[in-house]
């Protein structure tokens, strides 16, 4: 970080939603509560108080270009105890949203793009998805006590819409069965959407508000179309 010579106006400060109370970042007393509570403080230079201070000083550029925003787990422990009620988590998420998309770490932004295009973060075509799910469903039906198990796709008027974490569809298929066993024994009236089934919102994670809204909208759309009141979201 360079020498501070003046305070710049901060876009992050203006954009970040205020919560839990109407406290601006400027209200920070640099008391250290957040730093003391954060499980990550000290790891790779992370410190929530530093992030708040950077925003207060208008050092948006430095923050956005650092990896600090991506280290946060968004657990909210800092915000919970902040005596000034500063929106620390919102600040960090807003900073993430202002990072150039090509600089979003790992495959997160790629996942967002795939999801926008295909309805899931791994770009799985509908027929492949149905094949995998039915295959796992048949395996479960082979277990004793589940002979009558069937995957209910797109069932109109079901009680519960079941979205899926892409990881479970992609590699950890076995874990799907735990859910389904519970549903089956509890005689839950559930269904899986054949389209837009993604249960992880990487738009939320990467600070991409537009994408986030789109993903949420798709789920709402599914629920309205199938007339379902309850949602199971595994994120």
């Amino acid at each position, binding site marked *: *970080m*360079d*020498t*501070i*010579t*003046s*305070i710049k106006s901060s876009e992050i400060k203006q954009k970040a939603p205020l919560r*839990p*109370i109407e*406290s*601006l970042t*400027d*209200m*920070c*007393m*640099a*008391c*250290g*509560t*957040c*730093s*003391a*509570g*954060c499980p990550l*403080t*000290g790891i790779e230079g992370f*410190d929530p*108080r*530093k992030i708040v*201070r*950077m925003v*207060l*000083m208008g050092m948006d550029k430095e923050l956005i270009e650092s990896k600090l925003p991506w280290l946060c787990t968004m657990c909210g*422990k*800092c915000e919970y*105890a*902040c*005596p*000034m*009620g500063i929106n620390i988590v919102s600040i960090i998420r807003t900073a993430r949203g202002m990072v150039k998309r090509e600089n979003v770490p790992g495959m997160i932004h790629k996942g967002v793009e795939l999801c926008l295009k295909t309805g899931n973060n791994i770009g799985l075509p509908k027929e492949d998805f149905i094949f995998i799910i039915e295959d796992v469903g048949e395996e479960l039906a082979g277990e004793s006590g589940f002979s009558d198990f069937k995957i209910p796709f797109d069932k109109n008027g079901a009680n519960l819409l079941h979205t899926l974490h892409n990881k479970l569809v992609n590699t950890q298929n076995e874990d799907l069965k735990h859910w389904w066993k519970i549903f089956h024994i509890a005689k839950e009236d559930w269904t899986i959407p054949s389209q837009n089934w993604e249960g992880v919102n990487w738009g939320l994670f990467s600070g991409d508000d537009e994408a986030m809204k789109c993903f949420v909208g798709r789920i709402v759309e599914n629920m309205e179309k199938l007339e379902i009141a309850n949602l199971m979201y595994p994120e």
Partner: protein
Amino acid sequence: MGNKIAKILVVGAGISGIRAALDFADIGYQVCVVEKSPAVGGILLQLDRQFPNNHCGMCRMLPMIDRDVCSQFCLRRGLFHDSISVHTSTEVVSIEGNPGQLKVVLSRQPRGVDSELCNFCGKCEEVCPVSVPDTFNEGLGERKAICLPVPHQTSGPYSIDWASCTKCGECEKACPTGAVKLDNEHETFDMEDVAAVIIATGTKLFNPDSVDLYGCGEFPNVVTSTAFERIISSSGPFKGSLVRPSDGREVKKVAWLQCVGSRNLMIGADYCSSACCMFAIKEALLAREKMSKDAETVIFYMDMRTFGRDFQRYRDRAEKESGVRFVRCRVHSIEPGENPDDLRLKYVDSSRKTVEEDFDMIVLSTGKEPGRKLPDYASHEGVFVADSAKGLKDISGSVIGAEVAAGRASRMLKNLGIMPADKDKDQKSAGQSKAFEERPRVQVVLCECGVISDAGSLLDGIESELEKFPGRLDIVRVKSLCRKEGWDKVKQIIRDGSANRLVFAACNKNVLGPKIKELEEDTEIFDSIVESADIYSGDERSIDSLIKDLDMAVSRLRSRRALFEHSQPVTGSALVIGGGPAGLSAALALADHKIDVFLVEKSETLGGNLKYIIDKELRQSIEEILNKVEGNPRIKIHKEAELITSSGISGNFTSKIQMKTGEQKTILHGVTILATGGTAAETDSYSMDDHERIVSLFEMEKLVNDASFSGQAVKSIVMIQCAGTREEPRNYCSRVCCIKSLNNALKIKQIHPDAEVYIFYRDIMTYGDSERIYTEARKKGIVFIPFDIDTKPEVLVESGGLLVKGIDPVLGVPVELKPDWLSLAVGVVPNFIKDLVKIFGIETTQDGFIKEADSKWRPVDTGQEGIFVCGLARAPARADEAMKEGEAAAQRALRILSKNEIIPQRLLARVRHSICSMCSLCIEVCPFNARYIDTAEGKIMVDIASCQGCGTCAAICPNSATLIVDFEDDGIMNVIEAAL
């Protein structure tokens, strides 16, 4: 309204309530104190020792002139004053009527124990089957449902905690005197013709149980600061050893967390509780006294608010000499530590490193409880609210606030024509009783007791021994002295007999105390010719030792003599030196009490620092007083005048002032109030003199409030706090700078919203509600950069411009600013008054402030009775605070000025002039400055208003020319003889 004794009601019997009650009693009013809890004393009951000397000192509030009307022992054990009645477990329901004739409805919860009958035997407590957490000890340890609410207050009776009492009746059965009554119906009663009411209800402390971050209730070794006081108290649950509540293990490492419940917008606490910082430092120091050398004490804080005159040096001593560690970090939460019952704190240190540390015990510095409101009747006309009922105050703040409230009430009464009893109070002087002129005839009253079964045989033994005593001794037995029947009989015996001295052989002395007072009204017997011996309480004692007690009592009575000291006349006028805010308000307060005041001002105008004050409201309030002073016929103003000599004693001073013209004038006055003020300090730190745009915060204030400021191009302004202050040689906080700088900064933002304002600070001292100004300043985008004494910012004057270099400690990044203006918080210094100090023989601090008699308990008295101090002359203060101190000083002065003469008290030093060699040793050693040389008479004299009868003079006098009445050599020898 005639001349009947006007009655004052004081609500609340904490520090403020007691102070206000004593203030009224001191000037002749009858006072009734009501207290919600079952005991008198408030929070101080739980706190053994206070800053700055780490001793107790509540007794310093006791009357020092009219001492005979008030018991002279520890106030934490109770308040016993002839003019003050106390109702505990009582609350105000409503107040109606007009000032002077208020009707107050009160509601009392019965204590369950009749105070007339209880003899403190404790049998009820023994049999009570209900044990509950001990509230007096903050839940540490247990107590019974019937108990002494304050263990060291053995003067109040036992009391039932109705919330935990099951009404099983065991105590009722066990009580030998029938004092227990299991009836808890509230009773309502009226008090008519109340002249005025003082609300001194105090502030409740924040309960940290509601915060789930500190593990209260879950971790037994997390305690509040009040609980910590109980732990280290010798009357506490651990008898004063510093051990952990969980396992009784010695504490080796303890931490204090500041601002628990304060400075927290999430719980609506946008204030600083003012007292907790000093409280924590004091606790850390007390802890260190009890801990081993290698033990650790750590205080976690945001700003260490050491804003009182001597606070910063106290903090520095704690850090440098006593090894208290200070860590600037607010801790998030408390987690379990590695070993069982240990506690872990995680924090970020000054080098931004994360540290995890385990502690044996953690103390939560809990402040004021948020959101507490005053009752509706507080705004009724004739009701005055003491400051401590509005927010948490430290002890001196409570004392001053109570005196202000009492003063305002008594001014109102004076205005309404309501007077205390009589200026010449009918003070029956115990010392001058006729009894002393006669040969001592001692009456011994033996209580036959209605309870103890073998009392008869005990008394037979005693009586046969007493008969062997030399000299005449009348002996009589009375059944149940503690009951009305018994007491009536005593009165009869005294009226019928010829005894002029009285000895009681009964039980606990406290049972008889209030009854002896009754005797004064009904007979010629005064408490100074009464002695008592406890023959029933405690472990079984031999007749021999009981007889020794009685022999000592008889010897004491036989050696008592009459006082021959004459009363001292009082000149009913006052001299106020200094016409600033403090002096003006003192002068007006006295004039409103129909006292003549001489106001002497060195300069050509009154108002003092008023000329620098810009805040509109504050200006108005000072100008209002100024106008009243100038228009008041009782106040003689002498401008451009200086005091050149002053002599005399309290109540009777002669001073000479000299005008600019050289003309001299002699003034006779009863008291002197020093309000000599202070002024902006000068400093050469931060290149103060090197550039015209480096200004003091006072100049900055003028600048930003000038109409031309809006026309200036202002892009950036830097302020540096504590410029030349809070470090030696000027190591004190000036109290006014932070608030003033913040107000300046807000003004700049208001006029130039785009200007950047930076404030470099060490600790922001926005105590009390002024915290809101700090909050507002941050909200407006003012940037605060903390620094330590070792990381001060640097100011450079470069090519005509300013460069301020510092470091942002949060980011660890250099800060380099080129401000248009640099404002330095230079602080304040007292005015130079070396001549006055010499004239009055008073003490000053190393910084030149006038020292008060006791910084906590007698904040506006000097060590010299009759001379008072207020405002900046005493300590840094805001103008509004200085004015309050002026009122408080006036109230203290009224103790003297409300009398026509000062009457000698029983316990006094006396000089036998015939053998006095005038060596003056007594003058040097007297801690109360009560000795002086009467040059006209050529004698060493005792100022009876100042003398407390301590006896230091008698001890030092090389030829026994000094003696203390009642402690003369022959009497003492006789008592010792009796004891052997």
